[in-house]
């Protein structure tokens, strides 16, 4: 496979027809919430485009994001992802290792200076100079700064790269931070999720290649087309929420009847992602459909937001000690006030009696 080939040449060589490309472009346009005419533009754009050089950096992560993308249900989709891009560096997927792998990364950076896209999964350790996560003798922090310096754009894949994720959870021993906190002079697109939906990744890359610009992003730098609606807004259990019909536990009658999972901690109302519409495993299911509430994994600090099984309307603190202390303090102040009032009254009575005695004598 020659990196100089256009995507159309590669697809033709693989036996992918123009009709199949159009169908795929229509699918991507739908995923990215683009108008129908955009499908043709995507197909034309993809056909003309050179394969986009991508350098994939894995930092403090569990490889779940890579698993999600490579093991996507639809192999055609997976094929197309790797036909659209020239994946020049990826520690998990590349055949080479050691010095040869690092040389490939540096070569890709040199040959595609200013044009390559950096994809990052995993958060960046910063404590003690970032020594808690290293590769090839360099800290993640150094590799990210070095690689992103001449990149076209950076895509943070997964909640760890986008918002710090699990490594960032309290007490955050490695000083983990999201990519956007390190790279501030380049456009950074966040595709959050633990893991993110494969189609969100493919759609975003297709958009970048076709239109040569970033898609519309929300306030957390996520593509609006994927992260524009909350899980709750698109959830098929929403009518039960509106009627006030809730499962009280995971094995009660409400749970068996498919009622809303709000009371068992579902974070769907405050989580923005396309799980309820795109779903997983080729549209088979998503967590809520499988009977578990949404964990809110595509939102910042989802691990520390008060517990997965605590309803959103409940307090995240345990105010027993504060309330107990406040009651004791209230009783002490109130009791003292009443005691002083009693003393004042007794003094007044004594004064009156003394005056009365004085008057009589």
């Amino acid at each position, binding site marked *: 496979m020659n990196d100089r080939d256009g995507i159309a040449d590669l697809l033709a060589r693989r036996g992918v027809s123009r009709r199949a490309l159009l169908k795929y472009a229509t699918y991507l346009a739908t995923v990215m919430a683009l108008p129908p005419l955009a499908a043709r533009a995507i197909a034309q754009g993809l056909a003309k485009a050179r394969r986009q050089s991508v350098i994939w950096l894995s930092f403090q992560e569990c490889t779940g994001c890579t698993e999600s993308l490579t093991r996507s249900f639809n192999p055609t989709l997976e094929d197309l992802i790797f036909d659209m891009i020239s994946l020049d560096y990826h520690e998990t997927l590349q055949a080479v290792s050691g010095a040869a792998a690092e040389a490939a990364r540096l070569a890709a950076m040199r040959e595609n200076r200013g044009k390559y896209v950096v994809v990052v999964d995993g958060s960046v350790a910063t404590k003690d100079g970032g020594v808690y996560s290293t590769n090839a003798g360099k800290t993640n922090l150094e590799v990210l700064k070095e690689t992103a310096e001449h990149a076209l754009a950076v895509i943070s894949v997964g909640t760890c790269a986008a918002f710090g994720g699990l490594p960032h959870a309290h007490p955050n021993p490695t000083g983990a931070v999201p990519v956007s906190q390190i790279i501030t002079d380049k456009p950074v697109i966040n595709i959050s999720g633990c893991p993110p939906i494969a189609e969100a990744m493919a759609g975003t890359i297709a958009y970048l290649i076709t239109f040569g610009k970033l898609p519309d992003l929300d306030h957390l730098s996520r593509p609006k087309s994927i992260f524009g609606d*909350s899980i*709750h*807004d698109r959830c098929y259990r929403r009518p039960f*929420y*509106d*009627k*006030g019909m*809730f499962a009280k536990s995971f094995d009660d009658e409400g749970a068996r009847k498919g009622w809303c999972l*709000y*009371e068992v901690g579902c974070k769907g*109302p*405050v989580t923005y992602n396309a799980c309820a519409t795109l779903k997983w495993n080729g549209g088979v299911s998503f967590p809520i459909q499988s009977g578990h509430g949404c964990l809110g994994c595509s939102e*910042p*600090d989802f691990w520390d*937001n*008060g517990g997965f099984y*605590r*309803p*959103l*309307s*409940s*307090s*995240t*603190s345990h*105010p027993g000690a*504060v*309330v*107990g*202390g*406040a*009651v*004791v*303090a*209230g*009783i002490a*102040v*109130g*009791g003292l*006030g*009443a*005691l002083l*009032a*009693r003393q004042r*009254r007794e003094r007044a009575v004594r004064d009156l009696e003394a005056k009365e005695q004085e008057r009589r004598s």
Partner: protein
Amino acid sequence: MSLLEFARGPALEIALGAFAFGVAWRLLSLLALPWSRDRSVARPAAPSALAAAAGGFVRRMWPARPFRRSDLWVTLNGHVYHIGLAIVVFGLAQHIQFIKGLFGLQWPNLPTGLVSLVSVITLASLTVALARRVVSPVLRLISTANDYFSWLVTALPVATGLLAQSHLGARYETLLAWHLLSVALLLAWFPYGKLMHAFLVFLTRGETAILYRRRGVQS
């Protein structure tokens, strides 16, 4: 820390602390005051203090005949928003979950649609009460900032709760945060303003009724 995290955590914790302190302080400082004994001889037919207090409390929930013409609608409106608030606070599933998180108690919830309808009626009833206070020259004269602020902190949670429930005006997390912050404000203000009547009304009405019945007042 996001606004919702602040509202669900420190804001509610501080508000609950302020509420608990204020209620304990005001109740104890009142109940532990030296009380003068009523040295008058009770009428022969005077009921026990408890029966007199309970009877008097119930009787004063409805205007006496001479005042019925002038006070009937005002009394009815008062009942509407008091009962409405009770239904909203103790009937909505999300509120029951909040209470369960604090005290471990829970009970079956009412349908969300019904609670939303009651919320709208309650808010309308509260608005009528405020309008009457503003329009009536006598009420306006005796009203203080305490009255208006107490009205505001009561109406705000109802309004923000309605918006959060119907997902109107902003993202749900923002609406929920504003609702929880308005509840925190209500709790923090409760014992220090006129909302404390929720506790004190039982003492004042009961005490008045005991005094009246001891002296032979029938109603």
